[in-house]
């Protein structure tokens, strides 16, 4: 297992009022993303535990593009990764943002 952590400053706060959401499942080639609204509006953090060791560069690129695109201010993402492909990671992150920005509890 490998632990990675990314922190980004972002332009805008993520919309919606939900406090947390979870998408995905930990399985081979899959991952779960837990997203929580716990940070100041201009910050975003992503913590990763991954079964695939040595892909820090790819994660950096995936996370960079994701933060650029969604500006998920105020959100902390916690990822348990079963060795998912980068495109699956991008998709789950996008799904997590969609879930927490939906109206709901």
């Amino acid at each position: 297992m490998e632990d990675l952590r990314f922190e980004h400053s972002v332009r805008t706060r993520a919309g919606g009022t939900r406090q947390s959401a979870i998408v995905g499942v930990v399985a081979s080639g899959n991952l779960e993303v837990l997203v929580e609204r716990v940070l100041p509006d201009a910050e975003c953090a992503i913590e990763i535990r991954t079964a695939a060791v040595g892909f820090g560069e790819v994660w950096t690129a995936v996370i960079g593009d994701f933060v650029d695109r969604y500006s998920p201010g105020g959100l902390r993402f916690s990822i348990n990764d079963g060795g998912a492909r980068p495109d699956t990671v991008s998709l789950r992150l996008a799904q997590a943002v969609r879930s927490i920005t939906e109206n709901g509890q």
Partner: protein
Amino acid sequence: MTAPFKDITLTERACSTSFYESSARTRLELLLDAGSFVEFIGPEQREVSPHLKIFDLPEQFDDGIVVGHGRLDGSPVFVAAQEGRFMGGAFGEVHGAKLTGLLRAARQIASIPVLILFDTGGVRLQEANAGELAIAEIMRAVMEARSAGVKVVGLIGGRSGCYGGGGLTAGCCSALAVSEPGRIAVSGPEVIETNRGVEEFDSRDRALVWRTMGGKHRRLLGAADVFADDNVQDFREAALELLGLIGPFGLDSLKAEQERLADRLSRYGACLDAVDIWAAEGIAHAESVPELPSDQFITLAERIGRTNRDAR
């Protein structure tokens, strides 16, 4: 960007959502009354297995089971749903303890039923002792809850089936609903093949696997009470139906079950294949049972009428 399902109702979604394919969370969301689910020790609590790191394996924040409280047609229910894709839905220490705690509360309250959405290969290998013991505790807790008057209903139709200790736990429930792709057994196909040889059981012959352990056979045998279509709405309706039918539990139930199982052994103990059992039940063209559409199958199963809710 709009979500694809914005404008359709929860019921429509539940009708069109395969139980087999869904995640544990989706099953609960669509099974219960809209927005009624409250989770206990949810993923944000990060109560992960303390043992997987020994094996350098990834953890899941909910340890593969979602437990909580919700409403079913307005009435309160406790629910537990296993996530069959995380380590095959296997029972570990934390996973099992969540269900145990839920059942203990149900016993104490004595009036709120429990729905268990099984999806499990059995004991989690990496914490085998803790998992085995967790199942023992769950079985005890189910019996104590039932003795206190609690209805415990199992729903089985996930991709990992209901194997090992999951199969035993299911056998302790007041009633079961199963779908065609659902499987209930103790030993898995590969285990039987490894122990007895491919001649006895070819685990890759999926038709054989399903007619031996699958939902249709379990329903015909009387091991499950209701045959559900593979969508969440049908499981919801099955759960409601069963909750309305379950009677009290006591010594008489166990005596009736003894008789039911002994009768099964004497009738079918010599059968070599499920088709022989079905034929012995008087089903014409028994070999075509796996191909029957569900409405025809349900009619057939009701005619055979092996279920006996007072005998489990």
